[in-house]
């Protein structure tokens, strides 16, 4: 380990240091508002460091130089940096929307910010790891604080949700670990690239899928373990309960950052360790099946929800399904030359999903801060009571449905396009049909806001930081919807790095 190594992991180090600094200052500073502000401002450091790393990769020439760190367990490339930007950005928005909400916690306000930062550190590491044991550790680092955060409201629902998250994430970690063990047993290495080398010659033979039942079971167990993280059906059952019970900013964090980190590691593991053509065609089929199941379950069950947080939980499950379409669109299926549309589509979708989902959550928090209710019916008449809030929420929901000129539309175009290129037109059709179904419950909220009579006439306005989060995310939804090139280029370069690692 050298100083250079330290620089390469400086975004994670600075984020963790920020968490520790906040905890220390909490002992001496009595104005908690100052600490909340420091938490937001402090994010500039890891952001600047990540940008510097990205530019550093640029300056070494057109081919990114992949730099392994800490005995080659971590890799700093544009793929991992893309996720670092995404996580830092999400955390910033989460903090902006937390202010008023966090003041309601009688105790441990600063711990709330520190735990989010620690979990984010885990997620950033998760995007960088290229070795299975590190993957496992990073996963745990990101998951454990989340369980504590989910229980933060300390009422019965919140405690229940923290408990459920803890137990089920334990179960899924166990499955993941079993899977890794089996893969290690078969290949003799925990390094993803070594696994790929060992498996290169494996062909589908003798009726044994994946070349061996051990490997089959290993991969399936790993899919199950990651499936929990990305809320893919049938590993999604924790999500609605936890989303409903957890503090709303934590729900937003879970649905955006945690899921993005999950997809980062899924892409990394499957595209780096198991890229062999015969293999990839098979795991792609598994992901395709999970995609169909997630989309359908998510959308159909969302229709009958009455609580908007629960509805957004099911919507998140459905979006995991759309994202899995991109994972399933492997290069092996695509015609030559149209390479990595799948992963870049996933990255673009994650970016788009982050802004639109955060916009929706910002609005939901702003409203429920005042009304004290998460029920869809309590949104009635918001179009008149809070025109800006209702407008942003409606716009975010329209984007989640996938209607132009929003980023949701562009994201779906790219991901469905990747599926069609990869010969998975049927999967794209399932996705489109599901998008239509989703319009039902998204627009039901819009209808409640604009067409139902208001419960009271009292106007309602969010506090300034929340307003920044609201308008910033809404502007991004529109901007990336009209001019997607910038985000798309970022996603394309990041996805390219995946193939070079």
């Amino acid at each position, binding site marked *: 380990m050298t100083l250079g190594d330290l620089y390469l992991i400086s975004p994670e180090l600075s984020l963790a240091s920020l968490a520790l600094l906040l905890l220390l200052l909490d002992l001496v500073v009595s104005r908690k508002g100052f600490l909340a502000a420091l938490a937001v401002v402090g994010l500039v450091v890891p952001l600047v460091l990540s940008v510097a790393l990205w530019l550093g990769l640029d300056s070494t020439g057109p081919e990114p130089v992949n730099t392994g760190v800490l005995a080659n367990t971590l890799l700093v490339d544009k793929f991992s940096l893309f996720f670092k930007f995404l996580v830092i950005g999400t955390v910033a928005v989460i903090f902006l929307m937390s202010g008023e909400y966090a003041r309601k916690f009688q105790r441990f306000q600063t711990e709330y910010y520190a735990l989010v930062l620690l979990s984010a550190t885990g997620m950033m590491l998760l995007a960088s790891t290229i070795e299975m044991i590190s993957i496992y550790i990073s996963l745990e680092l990101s998951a454990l604080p989340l369980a504590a955060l989910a229980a933060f409201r300390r009422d019965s629902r919140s405690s229940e949700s923290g*408990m*459920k998250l803890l*137990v*089920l994430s334990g*179960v*899924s970690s166990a*499955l993941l670990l079993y899977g890794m063990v089996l893969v290690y047993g078969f290949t003799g290495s925990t390094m993803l690239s070594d696994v790929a080398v060992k498996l290169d010659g494996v062909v589908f033979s003798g009726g044994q*899928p*994946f070349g061996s039942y051990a490997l*089959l*079971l290993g991969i*399936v*167990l790993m*899919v*199950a373990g990651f*499936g*929990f993280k990305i809320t893919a*059906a*049938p*590993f999604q*059952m*924790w999500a*609605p*309960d936890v989303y409903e019970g957890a503090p709303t900013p934590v729900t937003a964090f879970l649905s955006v950052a945690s899921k993005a980190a999950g997809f980062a590691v899924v892409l990394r593991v499957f595209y780096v360790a198991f890229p062999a053509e015969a293999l990839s065609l*098979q795991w792609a*089929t*598994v992901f395709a*099946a999970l995609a169909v199941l997630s989309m359908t*379950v998510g959308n*159909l*069950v*969302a*229709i*009958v929800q009455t609580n908007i947080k629960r509805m957004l939980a099911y919507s998140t499950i459905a979006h995991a399904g759309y994202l899995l379409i991109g994972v399933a669109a492997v290069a092996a299926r695509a015609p030559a030359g149209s390479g990595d549309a799948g992963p870049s589509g996933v990255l673009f979708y994650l970016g788009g999903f982050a802004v639109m989902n955060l916009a929706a959550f910002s609005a939901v928090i702003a409203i429920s801060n005042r009304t004290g209710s998460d029920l869809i019916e309590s949104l009635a008449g918001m179009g008149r009571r809070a025109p800006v809030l209702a407008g942003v929420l409606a716009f975010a929901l329209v984007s989640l449905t996938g209607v132009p000129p929003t980023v949701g539309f562009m994201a779906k175009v790219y991901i469905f396009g990747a599926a069609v290129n990869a010969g998975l037109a049927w999967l794209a059709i399932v996705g489109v049909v599901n998008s239509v*179904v989703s319009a*039902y419950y998204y627009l039901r909220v819009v209808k409640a806001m604009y067409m139902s009579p208001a419960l009271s006439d009292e106007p309602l306005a969010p506090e300034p930081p929340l307003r920044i989060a609201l308008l910033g995310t809404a502007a991004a939804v529109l901007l990336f919807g009209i*001019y997607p*090139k910038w985000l798309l280029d970022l996603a394309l370069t990041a996805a390219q790095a995946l193939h070079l690692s």
Partner: protein
Amino acid sequence: MISELWVWLILLLPLGSFALIGLIIRPFLARHSKLAGQVTVGAIGASFLLSLWALGSTIADGARAETWSSYKWLSVGNLEIDVGILLDPLTALMLVVVTGVSLLVQIYSTGYMKGDPGYARYFAFMSLFTGSMAGLVIASNIVQLYIFWELVGLCSFLLIGFWYERPAAAAAAKKAFIITRLGDFGFLLAILYLFLNADSIPGNPLDISNLTNQLPLAIGAGTVAASVATWAGLGIFAGAVGKSGQFPLHTWLPDAMEGPTPVSALIHAATMVAAGVFLVARFFDLFASSEVVMSTVAAVGGFTALFAATMGLVNNDIKRVLAYSTVSQLGYMMFALGIGAYGPAVFHLFTHAFFKALLFLGAGSVSHASGTFDMRYMGGLRKVMPWTYHTFLLGALSLCGIFPLAGFWSKDEILAHGLSSASIGQVVVWLPIVAAALTILYTVRAISMTFEGEFRGGADAAEDAQPHGGGVHLAESPPVMVAPLVILAAATILGGWLINPTTGLGVIEKHWLAHFLNTKGADVNLPLAVISTVLSAALFLAAHHLFTKRAATARRLSERLSPAHMLLSRKYYLDHLYEDVVTVRGFYGGAARLLDWADKAVVDGVVRMIDRFGRNIGRAIALLQTGQLQGYGVAISVGVLAMVGIYLFF
């Protein structure tokens, strides 16, 4: 050399003015709505100066086409949709016409619209229109062009229906929007056709300079089927027919006169309706590679020239007479393009923009005094408003093609070209020639009814006085309205021979405009010019005598021809056909009822079924969500087993 940014500013300044008025002045500074007019005039004035610069720079550059592809907007497959600028002589010329006429109209409007409650809204729309029109003209990509094309259509709708509280204006706006939409649909089909045939078209099939350079070459060389040019050309021409009010989609333009008069002058005479002609000129090389398209354009144009002129003969509304005249003159331009006379067509577009704007603004000035547009209640205004009268007369003489006014030069060139053309022009040319005679008749009739004789009461006598004008006050219009008339009159006197002289004029070379447009300048056909001038002048004087001194004879004449008069005043029953037969009986009575049934029974039925089905399944799955941790663990295990199962059994 002008640079990219400045050209963009030509379009961005008016759009900025639109945003400023719409977002700041109208909501927050309602008491200072005068600002709206000033901002608009300022922005468009700056645009005009930049347009002059663009023109100068194009001239200095040897009339070369300059392209900038500024942004890559979208890429679909291998197809890229750029947003950029195409600055060629045609663009530069159109920019000057659009911003120049617009500037004068805005100045005039600050007087004409004074005191109107929608003052700020009016200027917001006018700014948006001017910006959109500039955007249409500079577009380097057919999709970009289409976007602005629709935007000017929207502005036209908004401005025709500016006094939306009047049912006639609202109906006219709707009519204009719907009928031009029919043509626009053809344009859209052409774009889709190009899009779908991307593989057979060399280069980017949406790039305008590619479509007008490489594609015609490839068709000429036989590597691309000529049918590509035919289908694409016909579709684009359909768009032009709608926008330029050519037969059979002309019916909206006379009704569009319900809008404020400056709007009629700018949009429905000088610029937007000429956009159809511009579109054909823009894709001229593509059109020229298909005989079918060229013949269609010539035939439609020639026919419209005559057809519209006949209806102009019997109308009593001064603006509608001018509207029919506009349709007819646009027909001339289309005819010219169809017979390959690109230079004369653009020349006529240029001159017509000025003298027709002059005529419309003159009509506005007249109604300012008389409070009506109905010529039956005017008369005798010659003495009251000498400035208006004389400038109007100049515009009218130019329209009639009297030497040496602008209209003479351009119209004569078109007719000379038609007579000497070898193609379909030989046959069709007689239609515009007859139309030229009719033009003189309806113009003289309008002048006589408006300016000669005794005043017949104006708004006080008319049963349905126009809401604008606020009654009769017989006086010359304010200077802010007269000044644009004078400037336009000057352009009408000078514009023709100065920019396209038949002999060298020192600094200005012979056939300057034709050379600028990279076409061959035609020498003046002296015998033809003399004959046409003499005939026109004679007819003008005779008609003047008939309508002024022998008004009774004229009335008797029209009574004797009453069946024809009826046919013309009923507009050949085409409105009846479109509205009563096709729309009410065919569409509402037949198709709409059928679709309504299908919508309720089939579509709604299916949707309701899916709704019930989806909700029930959703409820059923939700039942699994028991809240019991053990259950969730079981689900995970079942999921793992199922995945293994998929592999073992499939």
